[in-house]
């Protein structure tokens, strides 16, 4: 165990500062906190809760799909269930998952700051998230919506279900996301520790920064779009209603102008987590640091010009379709740059195969598989065959669940000792990881096949000859579900009874390990001066090198 400077000082005499977990234990001290670490932990608990809400509905959907005909639920409930699954997973889990939970916790630690730039705004962002979630859930309990999470007009402006509260909920959660983005950008610009220039920033900070740009520039457009649909429902404004001269395709343009970049809100922070974990578990500095950093910004930039690939069959001209297809493929190039560099980082590294590393392997495989099918889908001629089939479902689940959730789990395990100062059970960790990776493949590879055979998405019934593959997919989903339950059980046990962790159990040289685990409320007794690159394993100095002025 290597001691950080703060630890050595503590051992030398002064009593150690209380950790952020011990600094006030009442419920109120959490609800009224300004501490970025506590806000991060509250976000983490909330997104995990909503992950299970969305997950249970996914399993119920898969259960219905065991039978080709009517079974278990009626058609309208089925529509409500897949809408609920999508809305909860996208707006309440994936978008805030890594940035708001882990970003809040580790980003200030990584740049040697005592907090984010606007701590009160940060807490406010959490409450906005809760309010938005409550409004959306209220709508779901009181009738739900049957439009799918994409809320396509004109159906969403006329559907008899409770679309308005769900739109409003997503609108409010969007503002929470904007405020987090503003906070992170300002924090990175103004609160970096002395010596920490941009070319020394940890790669997680780079990718979170790129994510924040998307959150700031795209989310307001979703906000106004959802607002217009809401006034259409309430006041019959008709902007997207062809009966009143409106254009429903305009909705699709405005919706995907946000929602396509939103996919990168979900995957960029995941890529950041992987960049950190690959270095930490290969004991090697990042291969191609600049290439990884700039490709994050590249994805954020190009991501704004790809939304048209959702409209290939919506009457878009062939030329526009081709242009959007080509632009979409640029994302593949930036992603491939990252993949090559991660593999380059592992090459000749000293790999320790712990649970986070298992998720890295899963992530790389899912990202490449999902990404390649994405490039195929960006080809207009192929997309016309696959559009709105299970092929597209399988493709985006490979990225959003396969890649993003793997990275979320890697982050959860890698930073668990950092956040809570406890050690989880490594054996169970590997069991759950294997189960999840296996279950995920069993769930979604059959869906690729189903989509290719022409089974459309969101349909309540399907022809009988598709049943075998659907049963396989449901079986896989069950395995996947078991995997997640195992994780919750052993992490809950670790939280309560787990062995106390060392300050830096991985021996990682990421900058967030400069301070003790769990960190004291104000993170650093002395703001560190950064003289090294992150993950510099050539020396035996502690991460970042703290010089006491």
């Amino acid at each position, binding site marked *: 165990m290597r001691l950080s400077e703060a630890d050595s000082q503590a051992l030398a005499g002064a009593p150690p500062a209380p950790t952020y977990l011990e600094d006030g234990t009442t419920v109120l001290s959490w609800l009224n906190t300004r501490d970025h670490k506590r806000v991060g932990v509250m976000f983490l608990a909330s997104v995990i809760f909503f992950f299970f809400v969305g997950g249970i509905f996914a399993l119920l959907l898969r259960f219905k799909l065991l039978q080709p005909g009517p079974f278990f639920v009626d058609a309208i409930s089925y529509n409500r269930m897949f809408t609920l699954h999508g809305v909860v997973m996208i707006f309440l889990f994936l978008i805030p998952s890594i940035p708001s939970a882990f970003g809040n916790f580790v980003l200030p630690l990584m740049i040697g700051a005592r907090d984010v730039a606007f701590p009160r705004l940060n807490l406010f962002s959490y409450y906005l998230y809760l309010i938005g979630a409550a409004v959306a859930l209220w709508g779901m309990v009181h009738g739900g919506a049957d439009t799918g999470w994409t809320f396509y007009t004109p159906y969403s402006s006329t559907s008899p279900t409770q679309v308005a509260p769900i739109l409003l909920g997503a609108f409010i959660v969007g503002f929470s996301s904007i405020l987090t983005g503003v906070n992170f950008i300002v924090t990175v610009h103004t609160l970096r520790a002395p010596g920490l220039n941009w070319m020394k920033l940890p790669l997680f900070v780079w990718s979170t920064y790129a994510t924040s740009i998307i959150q700031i520039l795209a989310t307001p457009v979703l906000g106004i779009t959802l607002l217009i649909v809401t006034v259409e429902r309430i*006041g019959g*404004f*008709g902007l997207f209603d062809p009966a009143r*001269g409106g254009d429903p395709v305009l909705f699709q343009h405005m919706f995907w102008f946000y929602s396509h970049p939103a996919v990168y809100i979900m995957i960029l922070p995941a890529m950041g987590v992987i960049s950190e974990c690959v270095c930490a578990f290969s004991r090697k500095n990042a291969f191609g640091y600049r290439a990884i950093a700039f490709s994050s910004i590249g994805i954020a930039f190009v991501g704004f010009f790809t939304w048209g690939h959702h409209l290939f069959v919506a009457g878009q001209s062939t030329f526009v379709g081709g242009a959007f297809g080509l632009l979409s493929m640029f994302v593949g190039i930036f992603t491939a740059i990252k993949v090559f560099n991660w593999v380059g980082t592992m090459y000749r590294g000293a790999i320790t195969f712990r649970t986070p590393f298992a998720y890295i392997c899963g992530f790389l495989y899912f990202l490449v598989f999902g990404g390649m099918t994405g490039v195929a889908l960006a080809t207009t001629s192929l997309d016309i065959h696959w559009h709105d089939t299970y092929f597209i479902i399988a493709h985006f689940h490979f990225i959003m669940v396969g890649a993003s959730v793997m990275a979320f789990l890697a982050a959860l395990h890698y930073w668990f000792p950092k956040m809570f100062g406890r050690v989880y059970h490594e054996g169970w960790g590997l069991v759950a990881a294997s189960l999840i990776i296996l279950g995920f493949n069993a769930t979604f590879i059959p869906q690729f096949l189903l989509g290719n055979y022409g089974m459309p998405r969101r349909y309540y019934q399907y022809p009988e000859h598709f049943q075998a593959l659907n049963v396989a997919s449901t079986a896989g989903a069950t395995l996947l579900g078991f995997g997640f339950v195992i994780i919750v059980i052993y992490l809950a046990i670790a939280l309560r009874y787990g062995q106390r962790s060392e300050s830096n159990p991985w021996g990682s040289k990421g900058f967030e390990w400069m301070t003790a685990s769990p960190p004291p409320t104000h993170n650093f007794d002395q703001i560190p001066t950064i003289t090294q690159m992150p993950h510099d394993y050539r020396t035996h100095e502690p991460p970042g090198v703290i010089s006491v002025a």
Partner: protein
Amino acid sequence: MSHEVAGLPEGILGHHFSSLARQNEAMRLGMWLFLATEILLFGGLFCGYAVYRFQFQLAFAECSRHLNLTAGTVNTLVLITSSLTVALAIHFARTNRQRAAVICLVLTILFALGFLGIKAIEYTEHFHERALPGKYYAFEAVKVPGAAMFYSLYFLMTGLHGLHVVIGMSVLAWILWRTVQGRYSSKYYTGLELGGLYWHLVDLIWIFLYPLLYLI
């Protein structure tokens, strides 16, 4: 846990900032980013306007002529003047003329109220003429297809802008209270400056709405 700065009221400098200058920089950057999100929020509506203006050129031109041009022009002048008074308030605060700053802020809020008053008169006219959005549209004077769409956009854009005027007014009222308390001086006036920035944006959006809706 904020540390004190000589000559400043307590609680201005956050514990996590190394200097006041750095904190001011952070606050300004945060505000500019927030203003960017506001522009994109309205951007969606401007995009919708562009699409339907192109599609229903005749109806939009016709409806535009039935808006109260005098009211719109007066309102534009009112808002531009209010931008001047808020800028003067910042100028007076940073030169330690607190009384003048307070007067300017009060004037700004009065101008904002004036703007809302004139807008309310216009809205009342529309209701009497039944020049209403979407399915409620029953305006006798213009019966071209697309007229209802113009009023949908008109009410959405001016309504959302009006909401921003109300929010801006509340922010300015809060800042006025802070100025009366003597929080802003040549040493620290960032809070006031940010309120002013927000108010300029509200003004700026109107400067785009006015020609799009009333003039062309």
